């Protein structure tokens, strides 16, 4: 039951990411709008990134590019949490082995 639920949530998030690629508003968000209105926008320095502004540079179609970037992001996050679980398992086993050897 658990795995099905988690899979369902992941599928929903992929659907949301794809929909976001197609339908998300491209207007500036709250902080950007305020920065533009108060004329301090130019102080921002662009950050280097692989998928700048949620686009994959090899795909020119803006919606598909954003959808793909979203899916990559989701997979990246899932990979990070899976790795944490995996590392946790390894560390616990190692600690246990060390303890057994001391005995």
């Amino acid at each position, binding site marked *: 039951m658990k795995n099905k639920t988690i899979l369902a*949530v992941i599928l929903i998030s992929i659907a949301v990411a794809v929909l976001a690629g197609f339908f*998300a508003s491209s207007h500036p968000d709250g*902080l950007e*709008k305020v920065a533009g209105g*108060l004329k*301090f926008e130019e*102080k*921002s*320095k662009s950050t280097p990134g692989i998928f700048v502004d949620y686009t994959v540079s090899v795909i020119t179609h803006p919606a598909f590019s954003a959808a793909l970037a979203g899916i990559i992001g989701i997979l990246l996050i899932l990979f990070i*949490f899976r790795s944490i679980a995996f590392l946790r398992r390894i560390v616990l086993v190692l600690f246990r082995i060390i303890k057994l050897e001391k005995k």
Partner: protein
Amino acid sequence: MHIPNGFLDPKVSTGTAFAAAGVIGYCIAKVRQALSSAVPEAVFASMGNIACNVTGGSKKLISSFAENHLMRMGAVASLIFAAQMFNFPVANGTSGHLLGGILAAIAVGPFSGAIVLSMILTVQSLFFADGGIMALGANILNMAVIGTLAAYYIYYFTNKIFKNKFGFYAGIFMAAFFSVISASIACAFEVAMSGTIELSKILPAMASVHARIGIAEALITIMAVEILKNVKFDLDGEVKDEE
């Protein structure tokens, strides 16, 4: 409201980074503690991996409970990451997106929720150029600590006062609204303290824009919680009864 590089001076960025690191470290300790102590005895028996033989009856053994909790955190993180991409228009050429702090806190617990949000923010700043790397500490402090951990207690106390469905939904609504407002106010203070702009200008502008985003945030959070309930996602948090 991801702060880009350049809005904060070095003093503010390092200060917020240390504050954020401290709180998130505390959150990690809390979650680890909850995971290693809240493992039901039945789970101990039902483990079937090789590691089980090594760990034996240790209290801190590899529990499917803990791994399941981590995967729930991952699923919620991916949901919020996707939702944060979905900018919706709020007013005259402005858009907003979900912050998701309250959603995370309700789905996996306040401490895990803060970790989920800071993980999302880190991925966004490292790979998607959304929020500067120098401003990561400030972003985590605003959205993961204030917008998730602190705002969760609005939900918690509303639930304690009205012990019914009304309390549940009113709590979500108020907590989600105030999570966005307080995060935007904190953001305004940080940018003003860096000398980028006067506080008297940025504070009302940020608060008024984010009041609208906050209402949308509240409605989306309630909708998302309903969806999570429909897919039978446990809204348990780290432990059953969070103090």
